[in-house]
């Protein structure tokens, strides 16, 4: 149903030349996988699919098409990253046709082996906070996310950083990591040397998390991209929970309000700063 609706919307908008391309998903090459797919004409629209494996956050591709009018499918978490990009003037609202999908969660694998992805197990936002059209019926949220955040993560994090190969896939998969030169890749001065020592991997990862705290849409893209299966969601959610507790803000929920990083008041809690 949703798939047919996506195809129809994409076709209509492309035919009417209201958009230049439509970002969606196409069938993948492996069971339980889909590929990001940019439909450039009405004839491509039959290839658009929608199923429970549609995990990739397509917002990550918007920067690839500067000045174009783009249709895009977003889940609630993807839409939250889009809201952050709108806050930060990285995309223009008038260039977007946003098809939101109410989301029961995405899964890895097919059939009996399909498993709900970690970010979905702890997701509270099931309706896209921004969309021109929203597809799918309302979804109940039944989770206890706080339970997953309990405890200190530092030792676990240090352990995981022993396994990091510093490929930066987590960064590249994130729509919010759009710096032209990432601090981890700059050469003058060189802040992170190439290699895989745990200390520098931790420095990189903490830097990345600092840069996305208060902006992250909790889409799980970083964790999914990690070839070492490092559970990045855990620490990211911890940062998000801290933000929420301290500043009363959850990132990417409204274009109208500026978000935690977009406001300043002398009475703000400064406890995290030296």
């Amino acid at each position, binding site marked *: 149903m949703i798939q047919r609706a996506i195809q129809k919307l994409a076709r209509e908008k492309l035919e009417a030349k209201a958009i230049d391309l439509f970002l969606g998903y196409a069938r*993948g*090459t*492996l*069971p339980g*996988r*889909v*590929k*990001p*797919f940019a439909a450039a004409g009405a004839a491509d629209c039959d290839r658009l699919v929608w199923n429970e494996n549609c995990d*990739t956050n397509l917002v*990550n*591709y918007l920067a690839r098409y500067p000045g174009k009018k783009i249709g895009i499918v977003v889940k609630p978490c993807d839409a939250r990253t889009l809201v952050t990009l709108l806050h930060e003037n990285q995309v223009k609202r008038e260039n977007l046709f946003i098809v939101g999908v109410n989301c029961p969660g995405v899964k890895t694998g097919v059939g009996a082996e399909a498993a709900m992805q970690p970010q979905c197990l702890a997701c509270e936002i099931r309706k896209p906070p921004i969309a021109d059209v929203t597809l799918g019926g309302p979804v109940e949220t039944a989770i206890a996310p706080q339970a997953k955040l309990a405890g200190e993560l530092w030792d676990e994090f240090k352990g995981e950083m022993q*396994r990091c*190969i510093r*490929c*930066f*896939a987590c960064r*590249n*998969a994130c729509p919010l990591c759009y710096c032209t*030169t990432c601090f981890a*890749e700059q*050469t003058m001065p*060189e802040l992170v*040397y*190439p*290699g*895989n*020592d745990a200390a520098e991997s931790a420095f990189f990862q903490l830097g990345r998390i600092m840069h996305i705290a208060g902006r992250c849409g909790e889409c799980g*893209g970083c964790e*999914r*991209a*990690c*070839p*070492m*299966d490092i559970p990045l969601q855990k620490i990211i959610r911890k940062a998000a929970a801290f933000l929420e507790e301290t500043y009363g803000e959850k990132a990417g929920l409204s274009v109208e309000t500026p978000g935690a990083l977009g406001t300043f008041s002398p009475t703000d809690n400064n406890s995290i700063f030296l």
Partner: protein
Amino acid sequence: MNPKLLRKTEIAAFVQSLAPSHTIVAPQPDEGQCSYGVLSNGAQPALDGGRPRKSAKEALYPQKERMFAFEAGAVEPCSVEPEPPLILFGVRACDLKGIEALDTVLLHGAFVDAFYKARREAAAIVGLACEKMCPTCFCNSFGIDPYAPPACDVNLVPAGDAFVAQPLTEKGEALVASLPDADAAHLATARKAGEAFHAAENPKVAVDAFVEAVAEVFESPAWEGIVDGCINCGGCTYVCPTCHCFDIVDETIGHRGQRVRAWDTCMAARFTLHTSGHNPRVTPAQRLRQRILHKFQYMKKNQSILGCTGCGRCVAVCPVNWDIRDAIGRLTEELSTASKA
């Protein structure tokens, strides 16, 4: 050389018996998959854990290696630190082929890599035949047969409650000398394992046609057509058994430092960044072209070997399902049509 028998119940003890004089690198459980790593005392190698997450190249060619140290005014000369020789135990055929590819670059090229050479020449390699292919494996497309593997000293073939250990070199023969000869029943089971593997192989990718199609290509609109969703994350190159590009940097603290060689990836912006700030390779299409041409054109020309062994790891790790098998098919078609037009 006589095939020997290694009972599954005796693997840990056997490996342990080799350990006093050697460092053993073998597959071990790792977050639901398995990974090659240094086996700790008495640990059991995970020989039934499927294809290890990363290739075995890391044991011989670590991600980061110190070349020499320096202090203001003095250089501690480049010395190859003595390490206990390695035994790579339970290496998949695609990784064995990968080691062959690394050899052509680091051992048999114009420059010999002293660190690699020291490790490689001292190492003994024990292959492990796969019982079945993973959905992403396509080693068969490259003529690789886990039951008649490339470059290893011993090959382990599954035979029910045991492995048949077939020595293939003198080094290998010495390694398994303490094991009993394989009996006829186990040899028959091992043969059946080979037959079962070959009967259930994945469909082949037409590699030869592709190598021919890309032999002379550089500029072509076809590259843009295969980008799909590639985000240049580089995961694929780090898990690959043949990718061998490195970067050299000086890590300094005050007046001291060390020169380090570390893996690099052609997917990254910094890979081709010039001192001037100019970067000749900026688009995903340009970077994918490099990855593909290095493997299927440059290595073929310069090293007479291909830079892909069909291990399928890049397909398995890719977050956006960029599938080299699919790219090979589409490029072959595009490039052959283009050359006819």
